């Protein structure tokens, strides 16, 4: 069992010297395209020429102030042509531009796991066969020149999905490419993407990416950092909210000034809106208490992360449900999957289709909001009790250092979720839905849940058992994992 002394990582800002040393010795040498961006200040100079209108951080802040929304499209396959064609097709056919949209470009999994040789082999085969053998765009193989080309092609800002093991080099390249958004989420990379990478390493990589984003921001290129936790599609709202609140402190310490707090939907609109409010409130509170006073927090949401229906219109219904929930919840920047989710990687037609759905909903109900209510109040109260209790325990475990606390928390099963390839996750938790589809704990494992929350979840599960006249058991848990996809 770890004790706190044996945990090397800590929530301390990387000094410029430490940062540049890791950059020079660890990050850039990982692949030859690292050489093209050795001069960091030159990269920042290039990025400074990008028009402010195409800056994702400023775009999101402005949208929040004007109560507007920004739709964010996932997109990524192996070849550059596929990417440029897709960007031009979508922006040409949907009215998507820097005022209402930005791109969340997916790197392939080999690249995300720094297996650049496999990525390069997959890229060659893809070019040769004209078919994408990679499940994303191998940004590190391409290097800064192609990253700049993509950015110049697009009217909307570009950001990079670096979730998975270690996206430090990829992030260096895309920011040098003029992109203005990246992602930095440690717990997510553990529970959703890795098997045996310790949380310490994941936090270290995250700190580096956050410091790099802050480096650009401090020199006049505001960078939006997606502090999110899409999770596995089978997590509780409590878990994902906690991940984002806790990691807001990690990013704040590295000097990040634009944090996009992004949560996955349970699909119960009241619980999802409650989770967003609690996450925004506690992130701001804990950061403020820790002395970080000038951070822009922007609300955000992922599309449903669990399995999708194969029928394209049933998938369209999911896109509309997700978007309406964000409109009613005033969630400024929300991400979109495509109707091909149950089939494969998004095509340009799929991306455009999602935007047709969303822009129509914004036109007809973009100014409607979910009113205050008793139900919303209760969900907020229960989630706040849960997240606050876990925050206090974890901060306590780390003697006030959230990085150390998180490592201890995972090891003691306090920070725990149900389905994950990550060997460090205890997995003593069973998540189940209540009668209205809210996420509840059938088994709470070692989670430090206040009694009131445990009782509330028990009652809510009992309501479902009564309504459906069947016991809440592992079979119901498994049904809940795939109920959305059973069209």
């Amino acid at each position, binding site marked *: 069992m770890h004790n706190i002394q044996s945990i090397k990582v800590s929530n301390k800002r990387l000094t410029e010297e430490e940062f540049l040393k890791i950059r020079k010795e660890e990050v850039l040498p990982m692949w030859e395209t690292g050489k093209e961006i050795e001069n960091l200040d030159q990269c920042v100079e290039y990025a400074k020429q990008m028009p402010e209108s195409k800056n994702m951080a400023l775009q999101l802040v402005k949208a929040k102030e004007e109560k507007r929304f920004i739709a964010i499209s996932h997109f990524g396959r192996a070849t550059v042509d596929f990417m440029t064609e897709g960007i031009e097709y979508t922006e040409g056919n949907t009215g998507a531009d820097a005022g209402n949209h930005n791109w969340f470009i997916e790197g392939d*999994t080999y690249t995300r796991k720094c297996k650049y040789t496999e990525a390069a082999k997959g890229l060659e085969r893809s070019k040769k066969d004209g078919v*994408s053998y990679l499940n994303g765009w191998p940004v590190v193989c391409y290097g800064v020149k192609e990253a700049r080309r993509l950015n110049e092609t697009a009217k909307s800002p570009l950001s990079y999905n670096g979730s998975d093991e270690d996206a430090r080099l990829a992030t260096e390249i895309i920011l040098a490419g003029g992109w203005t958004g990246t992602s930095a989420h440690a717990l997510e990379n553990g529970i959703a993407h890795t098997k045996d990478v310790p949380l310490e390493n994941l936090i270290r990589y995250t700190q580096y990416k956050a410091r790099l984003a802050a480096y650009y921001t401090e020199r006049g290129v505001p960078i939006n950092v997606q502090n999110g936790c899409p999770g*596995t599609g089978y997590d509780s709202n409590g878990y994902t909210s906690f991940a984002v609140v806790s990691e807001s402190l990690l990013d704040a310490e590295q000097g990040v000034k634009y944090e996009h707090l992004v949560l996955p939907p349970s699909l119960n609109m009241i619980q999802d809106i409650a989770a967003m409010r609690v996450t925004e409130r506690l992130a701001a509170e804990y950061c403020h208490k820790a002395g970080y006073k000038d951070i822009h927090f922007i609300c955000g949401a992922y599309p449903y992360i669990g399995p999708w229906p194969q029928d394209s219109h049933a998938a369209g219904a999911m896109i509309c449900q997700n978007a309406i929930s964000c409109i009613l919840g005033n969630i400024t920047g929300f991400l979109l999957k495509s109707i091909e989710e149950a089939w*494969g*990687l998004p095509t340009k037609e799929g991306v455009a289709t999602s935007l047709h759905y969303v822009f129509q909903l914004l036109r007809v109900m973009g100014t409607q909001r979910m009113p205050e209510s008793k139900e919303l109040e209760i969900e907020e109260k229960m989630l706040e009790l849960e997240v606050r209790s876990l925050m206090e325990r974890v901060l306590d475990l780390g003697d006030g250092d959230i990085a150390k606390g998180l490592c201890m928390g995972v090891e003691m099963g306090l920070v725990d979720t149900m389905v994950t*390839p990550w060997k460090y996750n205890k997995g003593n938790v069973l998540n189940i839905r209540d009668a209205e589809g809210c996420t509840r704990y059938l088994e709470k494992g070692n989670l430090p849940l206040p009694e009131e929350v445990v009782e509330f979840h028990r009652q809510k599960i009992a309501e479902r058992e009564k309504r459906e006249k069947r016991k809440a058991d592992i079979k119901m848990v498994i049904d809940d994992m795939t109920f959305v996809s059973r069209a």
Partner: protein
Amino acid sequence: MENSDGVQTKKTVVIGTIGSDAHVAGSWILKRSFQDAGFNVVFLGAMVSQKEFINAAIETGADAILVSSMYGMGILDCEGFRKKCTESGLKDILLYVGGMLAAPMELAKNWNKIEEKMKSEGFDRVYAPRTLPEVCIEDLKKDLKIS
């Protein structure tokens, strides 16, 4: 489970998600279903290399290896797997593969091309996404000639 002459024999299957693929929900459910059906399951979780599949099969004397691939690079990850099994002495072990085996939707939509590719790689059976575990359990019982 009994084989054709009624002798009680617990069959062993190795289950996991191959390559750098972190998707585990599918194989997690596969594992539970095969356990419920009376199989002895060696569950390797996700991101399992070809070598790890083979070592586990040798150690546990497995009768079959069930490979899941979801993240879209199944074709690259599964290449040469039968060859490696044979080289490691697992000559006639049953190899099944299933899940979302190909990144580009085009390939997912013309499924037969993927099936051919996987069969040419030596997989005995190839399962499309959404195949219910029960289907695979029946196939395996047939292939292992047990009821």
